[in-house]
């Protein structure tokens, strides 16, 4: 018993690999396919985006039904976040208006966030088609895509966000 616990302390100090030797190994194996049921992550290159497609027109309907009460007509905001406008307000002296259109660096984030968290009262209730469509509508309102654009797993990651190049990764350093 003594040697076992002493061994554990040494293992912790030596390396992560040694730790496992004394781990009780209580994890329950699960297949990657089973794990997918919980996997909401969408990478900026589009990995994780589901099948399906959405249009601006359909998105306008979804927005009117499920978003406008909190995000206002045409995404103008109030009581919740303004989703549209503010482009050109970030670099100067005026108060910055941060929105999906002016600030967000990746279009994939829009799909990811709406799917996991919106509408506030009913998260994870929208179909893939509804999420693609309402994402398209918000991007259209910001002048980033045209009213004819169709969004799917291929086209969404290709949407270039206007503020993309202003984002700089600091890690592993930190700012002053």
């Amino acid at each position: 018993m003594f040697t076992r616990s002493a061994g554990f302390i040494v293992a912790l100090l030596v390396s992560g690999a040694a730790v496992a030797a004394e781990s009780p190994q209580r994890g329950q194996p699960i297949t990657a396919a089973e794990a997918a049921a919980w996997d909401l992550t969408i990478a900026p290159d589009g990995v994780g985006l589901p099948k399906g497609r959405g249009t601006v027109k359909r998105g306008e309907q979804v927005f009117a039904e499920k978003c406008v009460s909190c995000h206002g007509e045409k995404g103008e905001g109030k009581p919740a976040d303004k989703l549209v406008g503010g482009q050109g307000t970030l670099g100067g002296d005026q108060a910055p208006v941060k929105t999906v259109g002016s600030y967000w660096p990746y279009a994939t984030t829009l799909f990811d966030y709406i799917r996991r968290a919106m509408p506030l009262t009913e998260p994870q209730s929208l179909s893939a088609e509804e999420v693609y469509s309402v994402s398209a509508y918000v991007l259209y309102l910001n002048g980033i895509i045209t009213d004819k654009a169709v969004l799917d797993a291929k086209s969404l990651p290709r949407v270039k966000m206007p503020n993309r190049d202003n984002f700089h990764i600091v890690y592993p350093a930190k700012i002053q």
Partner: protein
Amino acid sequence: MLEHIDETPVAGNGLLDRRMFLRGAGAIGLVSAAGSAAAETLMVPAWTKTPGAWLQGYGQPSRFEGNVARGPFPADLYGGIGPGSTRAPLQNLEGMITPNGLHFERSHNGIPDINPDQHRLLIHGLVKRPLTFTVEALSRYPMTSRIAFIECAGNSGALYGPKAAEGTAQSLHGLVSCAEWTGVPLAMLLEEAGVDPAAKWFIAEGADAASMDRSVPLAKGLDDAMIALYQNGERIRPSNGYPMRLLLPGYQGNMNVKWLRRIKLVREPAMTRDETSKYSLLLKQGHVAQFNFPMDAKSVITKPSPGLTMTGPGIYEISGIAWSGNGKVAKVEVSADGGKSWALAALSDPVLSKALTRFRIPWRWDGGPAILQSRATDDSGYVQPTREQQIGVRGSLAQYHCNLITSWGVSAAGEVKHVYA
């Protein structure tokens, strides 16, 4: 025994030697202040002459401490749901530990009511063996404990503003708290799952109605990250992540994902909403600094502070908290003349890496106007900046990671207010 420590100020406007209280010389000052109070007749109070209350299953603070509470509450815009935060009442607390019921809280769509028997932690992605863990399974692992602060990246953000915001230590700086966290080192679980060498980051996601998620460098996960199950000895409170949260000592609070249900190992960050739209710093010329993780050294005087009125000239103890996400607090200096001169404060043991550290210094207030400041230096040599320095580098729109020196103005009437010096 009593080494003579003179009451001559060690810095401007009455700051005294930090060792004075410790070694007893302060008694002179205290006695003279107390001596002026009128003598009162000592009565035997009612509670000494009647039996007290019966025992309690879970203790509560005295009913006379009812004003010590988290706050302020945000406006209720969506009928009692939605994002929000409340802050710890720093001006009412002492020592380094925040009581569980007063630990600041921040959530993005409410506090989930999680049944621990049904909760699962999934570890998947770039691993050899995807695994799930129940709370019960995790309880079988060897645990570690550490005292660590958690600070919201938005704490103190009002100090970037053009005018000194009215507020208290709580309302301006209360998005920081410190607890003893106990749980399983994340490294041990990652080892069990078998990390694919291609993995460089992991996504941590909560089981709340925001499914709040952040990308974390795998190096941090293998270093001092913990799956925390206990907070100050009891199971983590729902508002702090029951039944489990990620603890990333020193990193911005939002990354210490509460109600943790999923860890996915990946090559690149996911660029989630809370690491792009929020918790990124808008600097000069529109540049945005993303993934600035550690909370830099900071300190704030909690006593005296706004809301606590001075009760006449005499000797006071100035007390406050200091912390650094990069290591230990090496020293805290205090000024009573708006930063013209500084005196070293005493640090109360224990002084721990990435934990709140209590500092104290005696002060003879002469009854005139004063500006109190504190300045922390950590063991990396980093010095807490002045407002001018911080805004000079970052501009004033960064919103997050504000750690500049706070000034409390003391008026001749003894009122304490937040000011810019």
